[in-house]
């Protein structure tokens, strides 16, 4: 079974969020880059677990990004990916990214495509759904469990107020979130092996973006916390009712 894991480069969760060039660009100064946590902890580690159960599984990574994404791709290879493809396109437009991945997917004929639930920078949660349209495959999101049984996938996904489990034939596209797998740390052997694993660079083929970023803004600062004495809970209730008007 061939698994394609979509990997995105995102700022670390504690990165300072600031903008430059008249608030039109994310300020990358001093930012640490990580594999998008949903891609790493859930999609990639689940793919590795599937491979541990069935050694015929191969794990292919794809990222649509500039050369500065290579350290995080090497990390994903160190965790357990077998080979990687980087599509050399720095577009922020989900539609462009999805089309690039779809081109890779058509070429590779994967049985299973995994994405994270969303990226923690643009929070678009769009790539898996777009791939399902571009490849005409089933899409199950956001998934908390995934088992493969021969040519079938058993996927549990979150629904409002609960979960449901579905069965479908491969190929299928699954977006992954918490529950799928436990976070892992690459070991020395993995890090050494990753250095020589194949990382192929493909030139960008899609240029027409459907959206463009005009401006970033930071939310207005809170005006400051109003402290209430722990013995004055009647006062807190009054404030919630009369001032905040939320209860």
């Amino acid at each position, binding site marked *: 079974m061939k698994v394609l894991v979509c990997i995105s480069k995102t700022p670390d969760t504690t990165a300072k969020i600031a903008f430059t060039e008249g608030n039109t660009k994310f300020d990358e100064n001093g930012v640490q880059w990580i594999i998008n946590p949903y891609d790493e902890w859930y999609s990639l580690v689940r793919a590795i677990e599937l491979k541990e159960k069935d050694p015929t599984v191969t794990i292919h990574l794809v990222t649509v990004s500039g050369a500065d994404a290579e350290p995080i791709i090497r990390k994903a290879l160190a965790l357990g990916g077998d080979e990687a493809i980087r599509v050399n396109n720095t577009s922020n437009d989900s539609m462009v990214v999805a089309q690039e991945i779809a081109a890779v997917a058509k070429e590779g004929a994967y049985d299973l495509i995994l994405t994270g639930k969303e990226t923690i920078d643009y929070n678009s949660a769009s790539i898996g*759904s777009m791939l399902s349209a571009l490849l005409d495959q089933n899409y199950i999101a956001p998934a908390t469990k995934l088992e493969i049984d021969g040519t079938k996938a058993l996927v549990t996904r979150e629904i409002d107020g609960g979960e449901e*489990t579905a069965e479908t034939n491969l190929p299928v596209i699954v977006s992954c979130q918490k529950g799928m797998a436990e976070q892992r740390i690459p070991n020395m052997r993995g890090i050494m092996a990753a250095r020589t694993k194949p990382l192929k660079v493909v030139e960008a083929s899609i240029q027409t973006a459907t959206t463009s970023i005009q401006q970033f803004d*930071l939310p207005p600062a809170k005006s400051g916390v109003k402290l209430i004495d722990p013995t004055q809970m009647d006062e807190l209730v009054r404030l919630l009712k009369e001032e905040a008007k939320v209860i």
Partner: protein
Amino acid sequence: MVLIYIDQADQEIKKASLEAISYGAALAKQLGTHAEALVLGTVKEDLSSLGKYGASKVHQVANDSLNHFDARVNSIVAAEAIKTIGADVVVFAHNTNGKAVAPAVAVKLNAGIVTGASALPKTDNGFVVTKTVFSGKAFASLKIETAIKVITINQNSFGIQLTEGTASVESLAISVPASTIKITAVNKVEGEIPLTEASLVVSGGRGLKGPENWGILLDLAKSLGASTACSRPVSDADWRPHHEHVGQTGIQIAPNLYIAIGISGAIQHLAGVNRSKTIVVINKDPEAPFFKAADYGVVGDAFEVVPALTAAIIKSKAGA
């Protein structure tokens, strides 16, 4: 025309879709046009009542096989229906199902899409949609460059707005492809409001020390009629179920009131709750970072403060 995709589960229209209609109707007004709705499947509600939220017409593909959500089938049928009806802007709720179909529909319509919109688009010069990015730590304004535009709107960001009126209902004949997904089990927590739809949320962190202490939090939630949430270490330790985990790597919520008990307010936690309208923090450490993001704070021991707050709420409700 602005068309709103209506999400349903168990033949009931999702609250998030009613909000999406109000948003779509306000957008239609801004554009000098009208808002219509698209329902896939059959629902219990009287569809003409969607007029109350601002839809002038409801198109229905009344095929029972659409009553169970399948992202591929729903996006195929929705895209065909939208092509038949003809819409300039299509609005979805940014909920579980909306996120799964809207981007696929955008592909099929050759439309640009902005997901997670937090306000009405600016339409005086182009079509610019503001959305939350960096898990709520910032906003980005994106211009959609295509003729047809698709938007998913963040839950609880616009609110349901009631107007006068009933919608006309029209049935639409669209062929429905067979689903190749078989649902084998459904596991619902009965009687609970899903966290993403809750307007009041009480949440607990590691400061509560262990699952055996959750009673005071549940009592508070009950007195308010609130849903319950927790921080990541709490669900990681299985003190509470995973679906209660809020934050950057959990669920992102935007209730009217979020009460955080024994939660330090790590940046990853805040990312999931910073869109709440009012935040109350109860923490015994006056230096806890959460106080910086709070509207009201109580520096004190949760084991004393929370029962006292519950009593005050019960007293206030009895008095009112």
